[in-house]
């Protein structure tokens, strides 16, 4: 275990640690372009040069391993001059088109120039013109003029996505990033090259010119695209509605989590946020009048729903009511659903599993076949009683008739196909749909209750490994929509059960006390990186 | 008989038209004079066929505007009294002029025509009464508007005018004691005498303190800056806050008519009325005994003009005061009225009495 001293601060690190990693642990910033912890070391940009005692020349911090007794300086005049010189070289042919560049504001050329450069240009020659605004894939656009040839993107397609679409071509001053012949950067992880590009050479086509990055507010969340539960940041423009055609959520960025997704996220998840500000969002309760859905206010809608539930219960007993929850809902939503329908109303026909006719598959990296973020949580919360089998009713196509269906966030028409879905829904006298967006299924419901999307709520998702992870609201619920647990609370209040929850946190406290698998968990313990469900204790015989 | 009535009517008309026109011109003067005092130009845009006449048409434009604006009566106000108030105010301000002499007797076509509408032997009391009744306009306006601010303005107006009328009464007493008459014509005539053969025996010479006190109290009577608390444009808007159109116009006109009235009273009581120093009925009696004979009609006309100039000067002076001094606070107003001016006027009265006693 060598001990290293960086800027007079000592640290003992494991064998094989590089200086840049050791410095990171000491919160000492060493500028870098080519170094990325998730990729192999290139050592090509020379920005991370540091002075090491008894070494005649400056050494790159990214590929120099720490030895015992090493004394490193990152602030000496020699280092500063060298870094400033490297930066000046990198900027020689840089077009300085920050006003049009989407990277402006999160660009490491800008940041390091302000921190380590601040020199006047000595460039008298004409700058070399290269390819600009070249579309190289469905999600990525390339500007070779802005490129500093750090090769992070090339290493990414070699080492992480292993799709090998791009490389560095030509030599010396002519070097530039190009697509390989007959290749398009269209792998499912292509968006990540935009994230790792330290400058504005690779930018996102989806985000292009939509909004400036400094308008964005950020909220830590978890991708709802599959059961992996990749950690993300929801970046929303909340105050300047004229940008991005009024969309609020502008982009999703992966958030580092060593145990789940590391630095990456797949394109399906990255671009799967469009439904949040889609015109199809349900923004007020609707009730079917004839063939049309007519708007009504929340209290009337809640009274209508509760009235229908009571009526169905009186007429056919609890057995005539079926609750279909959704693995898209948070643990808190599911818990309140169980509490109201299962415990307080005594309905035991609660399930969330809808067979999907579209077969989806895992890829070999992050994406999972189960495209729901909280299947594991739904199993833990809803199925610990076991018993009811929704699948049997759907597949048997029985003619048994029921009183009422309460359906959450599941597009049956899409999952089952139009004919089976209509047949299934036809078995119920009354259908209440609770969801965020309008779809064919909601169009078939008698009463529609608008729910908020995951970007608008606080709560937790449980990924396929049983890791419970926090999501934070990045924006306000659209229109009159409410977080699903609040919708249920409203119904419960109308039915005479006042739960008194003020926040999702309070729901979770009760959830952890009630559901065995969540025992001992709390928002504090989950933190920003999540926490696995404790191993369930075997029930003593 | 008919000729006599005609002459009386002519005099009434002459005074009425003169006073109303002067009041109207004062609205123009107020703007122009304040502008000149403040290095500005003042209203000069109203024009007829491109003739601007230094903004004189502004007066016409304002009048026209007043007539065509909506006449608003507050829903909860007293309709009749609300309508009556401005007329009460204007009426009592105007009738005061009846007793004010604007010239000596003129001899025309074998007639002796006194240049005064009516020579009351209690002229001062009459004017004093008319001025006091003018308060009713203010109080009625404040009360009938059913508006707290208007009512506050009306209350302020009545207490302010009541306070300062005491002083006016006390200072007038001094004048009466010296000139030994309540008839204004007699007072003016008495001011034609000379003291020690040189100095005209004007009220201001024999009652200097009384003159200043009367002027201050008189300005307070007009309810104009610095005594504009009943209006208080920047705070309560005042008793006419609920008035619009020509009813408001009447209140404004009353303000200026009162200005003219006070100017006329100051002239009459303290500045010799229509008297021109050394000009007697038969011509100029210069100090040293030389006589410059003038025909009587020329003397009379000169005196009328002199009177007009004096009144005009005091109008100008009151506008000057109005555009120089800031408004008093209400407690300052009351302290000034009751603790300074009123005791001073009593002192003035005592001193006058002592001096008259000693001289006799």
């Amino acid at each position, binding site marked *: 275990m060598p001990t290293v001293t960086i800027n007079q601060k000592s640290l003992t690190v494991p064998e094989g640690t590089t200086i840049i990693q050791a410095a990171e642990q000491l919160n000492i910033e060493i500028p870098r372009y080519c170094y990325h912890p998730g990729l192999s070391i290139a050592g090509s940009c020379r920005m991370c040069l540091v002075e090491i005692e008894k070494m005649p020349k400056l050494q790159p911090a990214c590929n120099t391993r720490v030895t015992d007794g090493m004394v490193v300086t990152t602030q000496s005049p020699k280092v500063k001059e060298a870094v400033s010189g490297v930066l000046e070289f990198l900027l020689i042919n840089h077009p300085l*088109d*920050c*006003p*049009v560049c989407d990277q*402006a504001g999160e660009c490491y050329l800008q940041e390091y120039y302000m921190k380590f450069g601040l020199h006047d240009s000595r460039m008298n020659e004409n700058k070399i013109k290269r390819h*600009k*605004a*070249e579309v190289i894939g469905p999600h990525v656009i390339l500007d070779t003029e802005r490129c500093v040839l750090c090769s992070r993107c090339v290493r990414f397609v070699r080492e992480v996505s292993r799709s090998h679409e791009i490389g560095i071509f030509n030599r010396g001053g002519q070097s530039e990033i190009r697509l390989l012949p007959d290749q398009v950067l269209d792998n499912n992880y292509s968006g990540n090259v935009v994230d790792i590009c330290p400058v504005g050479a690779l930018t996102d086509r989806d985000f*292009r*010119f*939509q909004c*400036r990055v*400094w*308008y964005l507010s950020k909220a830590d969340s978890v991708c709802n695209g599959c059961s992996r539960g990749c950690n993300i940041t929801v970046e929303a423009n909340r105050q*300047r509605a*004229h*940008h991005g055609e009024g969309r609020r959520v502008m982009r999703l960025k992966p958030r580092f989590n060593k145990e789940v997704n590391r630095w990456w996220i797949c394109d399906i998840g990255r671009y799967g946020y469009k439904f949040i500000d889609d015109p199809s969002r349900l923004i007020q309760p609707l009730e079917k009048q004839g063939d049309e859905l007519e708007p009504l206010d929340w209290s009337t809608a809640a009274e209508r729903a509760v009235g229908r539930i009571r009526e169905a219960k009186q007429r056919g007993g609890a057995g005539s009511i079926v609750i279909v929850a959704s693995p898209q809902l948070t643990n808190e939503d599911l818990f309140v659903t169980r509490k109201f329908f299962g415990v307080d109303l005594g309905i035991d026909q609660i399930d969330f599993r809808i067979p999907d006719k579209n077969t989806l598959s895992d890829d070999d990296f992050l994406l999972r076949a189960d495209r729901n973020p909280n299947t594991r949580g739904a199993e833990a919360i809803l199925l610990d009683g076991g018993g009811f089998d929704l699948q049997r009713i759907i597949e048997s196509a029985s003619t048994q008739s029921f009183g009422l269906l309460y359906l959450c966030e599941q597009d049956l028409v899409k999952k089952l196909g139009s004919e089976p879905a209509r047949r299934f829904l036809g078995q119920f006298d009354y259908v209440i749909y609770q969801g965020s967006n309008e779809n064919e299924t909601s169009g078939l419901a008698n009463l529609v209750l608008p729910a908020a999307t995951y970007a608008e709520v606080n709560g937790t998702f449980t990924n396929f490994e049983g890791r419970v992870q926090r999501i934070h609201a990045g924006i306000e619920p659209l229109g009159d929509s409410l977080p699903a647990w609040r919708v249920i609370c409203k119904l419960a209040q109308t039915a005479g059960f006042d739960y008194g929850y003020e926040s999702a946190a309070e729901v979770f406290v009760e959830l952890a006390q009630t559901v065995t698998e969540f025992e001992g968990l709390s928002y504090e313990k989950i933190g920003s990186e999540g926490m696995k469900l404790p191993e369930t204790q075997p029930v003593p015989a | 008989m008919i000729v006599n009535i005609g002459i009386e009517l002519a005099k009434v008309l002459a005074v009425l038209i003169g006073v109303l026109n002067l009041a109207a011109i004062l609205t123009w003067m107020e703007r122009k*004079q304040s*502008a*000149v*005092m*403040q*290095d*500005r*130009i003042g209203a000069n845009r109203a024009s007829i066929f491109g003739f601007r006449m230094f903004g004189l048409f502004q007066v016409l434009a304002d009048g026209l505007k007043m007539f065509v604006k909506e006449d608003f009566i507050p829903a909860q106000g007293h309709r009749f009294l609300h309508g009556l108030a401005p007329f009460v105010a204007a009426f009592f301000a105007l009738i005061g002029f009846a007793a004010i002499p604007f010239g000596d007797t003129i001899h025309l076509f074998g007639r002796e025509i006194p240049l005064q509408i009516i020579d009351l032997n209690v002229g001062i009391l009459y004017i004093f009464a008319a001025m006091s009744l003018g308060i009713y306009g203010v109080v009625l306006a404040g009360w009938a508007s059913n508006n707290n601010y208007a009512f506050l303005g009306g209350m302020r107006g009545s207490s302010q005018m009541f306070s300062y009328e005491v002083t006016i009464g006390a200072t007038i007493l001094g004048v009466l004691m010296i000139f030994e008459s309540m008839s204004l014509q007699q007072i003016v005539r008495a001011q034609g005498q000379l003291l020690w053969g040189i100095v005209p025996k004007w009220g201001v010479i024999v009652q200097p303190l009384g003159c*200043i006190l009367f002027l201050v109290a008189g300005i307070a009577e007009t309810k104009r800056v610095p005594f504009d608390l009943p209006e208080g444009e920047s705070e309560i808007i005042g008793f006419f806050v609920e008035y619009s159109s020509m009813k408001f116009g009447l209140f404004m006109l009353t303000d200026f008519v009162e200005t003219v009235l006070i100017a006329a009273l100051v002239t009459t009581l303290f500045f010799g009325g229509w008297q021109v120093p050394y000009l007697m009925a038969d011509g100029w009696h210069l100090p040293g005994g030389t006589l410059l004979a003038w025909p009587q009609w020329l003397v009379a006309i000169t005196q009328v003009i002199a009177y007009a100039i004096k009144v005009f000067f005091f109008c100008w002076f009151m506008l*000057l*005061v109005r*555009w*120089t*001094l800031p408004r008093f606070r209400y407690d300052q107003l009351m302290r*000034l009225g009751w603790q300074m001016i009123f005791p001073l006027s009593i002192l003035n009265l005592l001193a006058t009495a002592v001096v008259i006693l000693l001289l006799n």
Partner: protein
Amino acid sequence: MNRRDLNFAERLYLSEVFKGLWLTSGHFFSNMKKHLARQLGFTRIEKGAVTFQYPEERRPFSPRYRSRHRLTQREDGSPRCVACMMCETACPARCIYIVAGEHPDPNIEKYPARFDIDLGVCVFCGFCVEACPEDAIRMDTGIVEIAAYSRKEMIYHIEDLLQ
């Protein structure tokens, strides 16, 4: 603030009143003299008032005066603006609304598909001009008469601003 106590003469008020009247009447007479002299044709006499007769006479603006905005143009008449949102960001009144569009020329790349300034909200601070990296917005039109019959008309669009 320490106020000086009034002395006896000042407390009498009368002398101070006359001082005030002396000052204001002094202005009155000296200005009247000048007005009269000019009316009589002595035009070389100094004016009696500092007033500018506004629509006919205009006070010259200083070169730094901030009047209505304009967008500067390229040689082909298109706006120099590249929709970088610097002015929109700097604007303390948030009265600038820019929507960027993709320009067919990759060397220009970005252009303002929409550039609105709500002059009803603008505080004329000039930060937008300071912030602009392209010298695309200036406040040197000398236009100060900005009025409209509705709030909507106070919003100036890119066509208005380019003129």
